């Protein structure tokens, strides 16, 4: 059953990437527990606007947990306290009356804050550009059934391909490493015959780009897997390590 709760929000406010930010405290009273977290922020923003205060900027789009655009660190956890749940799918029934909620942007050198809770994730796009694809042009494809893929591999590839690129892995990693994101793409394509011809250059190029963007290294702490709203497994990181080693041996 839904009920109404009163909350205190401590929200990171930062005008743009050049200025320093600070926390501001807001009361969020009368929040329906059936609201999603972003709907709660909508309510707060409506009230701020009426008071003539700048509403809190946060990225979001689909609000059904698939576009990967939303995300913030809530009480020290990327996407908040519910496992395998994006911020837009987190509902306020996960909180109790009187709670104080600290909301911060993802923090990493490679993901600079644009405003308040919105960060620049274009580094992810550049990593994909460096090799996260199969080099096939439109019209070159053979018949779909010409490529057989065992169900086991197809399913594993699908598990890796589910990554939504939200960067919660970077946010939650003590080293701000992007390895879960990068390894998910490398795994997805390495597990399929279509990705096989380019697998060695792909892993080398993508890892090089990842390093260049200024992400940290993996110290096998597995926070990323726990924070990932799609439950992408760290076994993908192991696969990437293997792919990288084997590619480096040859070149």
């Amino acid at each position, binding site marked *: 059953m839904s009920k109404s709760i009163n909350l205190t929000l401590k929200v990171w406010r930062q005008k743009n990437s050049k200025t320093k930010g600070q926390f501001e405290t807001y009361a969020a009273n009368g929040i329906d527990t059936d609201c999603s977290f972003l709907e709660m922020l909508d309510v707060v923003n409506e009230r701020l606007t009426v008071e003539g205060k700048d509403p809190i900027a946060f990225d979001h789009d689909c609000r059904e947990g698939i576009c990967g655009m939303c995300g913030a660190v809530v009480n020290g956890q990327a996407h908040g306290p519910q496992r395998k749940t994006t911020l837009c799918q987190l509902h306020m029934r996960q909180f109790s009356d009187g709670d104080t909620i600290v909301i*911060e942007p993802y*923090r990493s050198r*490679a993901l600079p804050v644009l405003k308040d809770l919105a960060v620049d994730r274009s580094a992810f796009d550049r990593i994909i550009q460096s090799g996260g694809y199969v080099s096939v042009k439109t019209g070159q494809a053979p018949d779909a059934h010409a490529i057989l893929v065992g169900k086991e591999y197809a399913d594993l590839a699908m598990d890796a391909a589910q990554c939504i690129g939200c960067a919660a892995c970077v946010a939650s990693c003590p080293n701000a490493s992007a390895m879960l994101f990068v390894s998910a793409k490398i795994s997805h394509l390495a597990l399929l015959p279509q990705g096989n011809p380019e697998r060695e250059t792909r892993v*080398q190029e993508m890892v090089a780009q990842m390093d260049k963007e200024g992400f940290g290294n993996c110290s096998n702490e597995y926070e990323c*897997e*726990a*924070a990932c709203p799609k439950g992408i497994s760290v076994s993908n990181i192991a696969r990437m*390590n293997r*792919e990288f080693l084997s590619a480096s041996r040859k070149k």
Partner: protein
Amino acid sequence: MAGYLSSSIGRKQIVAVTGLFLTLFLIMHLSGNFLIYKGPDAYNAYAEFLEHLGTIKILARVGLIVFFLTHITFTALLVIDNRKARGAQGYAVSNSVGKRSLATRLMPYTGTLVLAYLLFHLCDYTLADHESVRSLVNGQNLGLYGLVYNSFKNPLRVAFYVLGMIGIGLHLVHAVQSIVQTFGFNHPRYTPLVKKISFVVGVGVAVGFASIPFYMHFCTMSACSLGGY
């Protein structure tokens, strides 16, 4: 190769492979140390044997130093990168969601502790004179055995060695499974087993090494030596 050594994964794998050799060294070291329970003769003979390995000894020492320095250097490079990657502004609230064990969290600290411990240990035994007054027990020169016997009568030293071993143990609990992951092995069935092995290796090495200072501290020459002195 330059690309490999400057890449995040390459560096991590260098740390892992040097760590693996250092772990194997520790296990060999430990099995040798257990000879202390056989008494001064056996132990000193073992020490003597090692002393006179000649070229092999030099190679082994140089190898160990190289592995150790490589391990530390590459770890330092990774840590510096990681600090930079995290950015200038840290989180106000940090709340682990995951499965980070204590051993994992403490890796940088246990690593530093092990380094400090090692420097002390090298001066204390490895590089010390094995035939000095520190080796005299009941007026008899018992060589390295005597040195160990005498020095562990000091409870502070015992405490420091035990602390060092807790550091090594924790370091290994994370490290062994981490090596396996870093070289790309992760399997739903075997990874849990690897984590258990990692735990057993870490605890085993720590308890094994730490047993010696305790034993040496509490035993008296007549009661604990089997050599008949």
